[in-house]
């Protein structure tokens, strides 16, 4: 059943990609760079994030206004906003925010693609499980980003997160205090959020490195055409809908000003947070705020159950269904010269070169780590000395088949 399902998803994915191949050729099909895309967008986030960081002030009374200063549209006659702000600050903020949505979307697409094409199982468990951690971290960093704006929505998220944490047995109260850095929300709270946000982003780097440990030559840069396309998307989105803080009052006050009116559909952030005053409706950003949609609609316990259950399912996914693994590459000791070709070409880093005993004719020998082997036979193609073989498909057998076919054909 499940196998059939995986076969069906693969078939549908390939059909879809065939259409794109027709438009872009195989070499430039953006869907073939599904893993490289989130990484590429991550660079936008780092650079725009550094620019924002230069002006951000992590204190309760200045956080919102510092973000506003970065991005404020100059508003004629407004004592705070007139000619204020940093040139193109709203666009940089837009790049950061649209980039964050883009990273989440491409990460999810990457995950679905890997899953649908059956590239998540068995020997691939390490990239998959580190991938699950990456997904969690992308979500975490995105959410902490929303906190930094310190608007009404950020305050709502803090209160809801505290409720979530308090529901944890035993450690609940401590976790909740840990989140805000003490009994209540203080300036230290925002310093901590900034640390979570930046520290989380650094950890994403570390996780990406772990993600690649068993992947030889990961495709980590999209084709140039794909790069320009993504760059275009982000710049157009950030240029036409930059991220700004227009409060509802400002909107009403300056409704006549076309520059303000143009942003009315995309009110990026709310009014400054008022501790103790909880907004009753928060605007959900579907890519990041679904946990809070859950909190509001199904309650704290169910939110934990749903998020925990989903994570658990994701973590065990690579181990089912089990494959019969009988065709793991084997090295023929007497023939191996230690040339390293096979270990250079093995796509899953399953072959290590090990020193031979002193005095041997050759210095090294190839050793296959069974659990990492995909049974692909690429090492067989790489070995000039016929020293490595798949036991159920010996290259001698292949050659015999081939001679048979030539004879039959002639």
């Amino acid at each position, binding site marked *: 059943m499940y196998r059939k399902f995986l076969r069906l998803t693969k*078939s549908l994915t*390939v*059909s879809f*990609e*065939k259409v794109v*191949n027709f438009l872009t050729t*195989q*070499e430039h*099909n953006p869907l*073939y*760079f599904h893993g490289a895309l989130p990484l590429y967008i991550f660079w936008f986030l780092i650079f725009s994030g550094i620019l924002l960081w230069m002006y951000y002030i992590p204190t309760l009374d200045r956080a919102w206004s510092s973000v506003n200063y970065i991005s404020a549209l100059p508003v004629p006659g407004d004592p705070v906003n007139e000619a204020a702000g940093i040139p193109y600050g709203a666009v940089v903020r837009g790049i950061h925010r649209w980039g964050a949505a883009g990273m989440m979307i491409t990460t999810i697409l990457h995950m679905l693609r890997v899953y649908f*094409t*059956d*590239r998540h199982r068995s020997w691939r468990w390490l990239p998959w499980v580190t991938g699950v951690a990456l997904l969690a971290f992308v979500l975490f960093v995105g959410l902490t980003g929303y906190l930094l704006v310190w608007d009404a929505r950020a305050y709502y998220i803090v209160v809801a997160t505290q409720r979530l944490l308090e529901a944890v047995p035993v450690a609940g109260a401590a976790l909740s205090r840990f989140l805000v850095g003490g009994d209540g929300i203080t300036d230290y709270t925002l310093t901590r959020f900034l640390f979570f946000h930046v520290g989380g982003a650094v950890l994403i780097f570390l996780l990406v490195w772990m993600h690649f440990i068993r*992947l*030889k*030559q990961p*495709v980590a840069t999209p084709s140039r055409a794909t790069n320009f396309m993504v760059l275009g998307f982000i710049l157009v989105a950030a240029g036409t809908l930059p991220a700004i803080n227009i409060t509802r009052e400002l909107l009403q006050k300056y409704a006549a000003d076309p520059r303000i009116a143009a942003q009315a559909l995309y009110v990026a952030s709310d009014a400054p947070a008022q501790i103790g005053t909880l907004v009753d409706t928060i605007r959900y950003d579907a890519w990041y705020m679904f946990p809070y949609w859950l909190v509001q609609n199904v309650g704290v316990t169910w939110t934990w159950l749903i998020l925990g259950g989903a994570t658990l399912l994701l973590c065990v996914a690579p181990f089912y269904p089990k494959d019969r693994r009988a*065709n793991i590459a084997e090295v023929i000791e007497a023939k191996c010269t230690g040339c390293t*070709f096979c270990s250079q*070409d093995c*796509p*899953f880093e399953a072959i290590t070169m090990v020193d031979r005993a002193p005095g041997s004719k050759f210095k090294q020998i190839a050793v296959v780590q069974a659990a990492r082997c*995909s*049974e*692909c*036979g*690429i090492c*067989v*193609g*790489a070995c*000039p000395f016929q020293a490595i073989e*798949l036991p159920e*498909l010996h*290259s001698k057998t*292949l*050659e015999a*088949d*081939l*001679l048979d*076919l*030539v*004879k*039959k*054909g*002639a």
Partner: protein
Amino acid sequence: MSDAKKTIIGFVCERSLPLEYMLDGGKALLDDPDTKVVIVPCSGMVKPTFLETALAKGADATFVCGCAIGDCHYRTGNLMIRERLEGKRSPKLRKTTDRRKVGMFFVTMKDRTAFLAALAEFKAGLDARPAQEE
């Protein structure tokens, strides 16, 4: 086009083409019985010497068929065999091998028609050529 019977040996990755619908009872292509197929788990398993052996033992042409570039199930197999046949990665084809008789196709399991068209073109190219000096 000559109507002389040809023998073409293809090494086909089991994940690239829907082979279960494409072969007669044996190992000949339904749509082109001249073409016989050796199935491999990944095009990256093909050694250039396999192709040389096929030609040396009397095949008129030989080819490798793997997944679309960018979509190898084993990540890099099709890139490896492409580089080997292009002489950019060891083991390479012998210098004396007639490259015109060696084909490469990279397709998805939905590209059956495209593959057959490319194969026909490859065959037509063989006929169009002047007799080989072998």
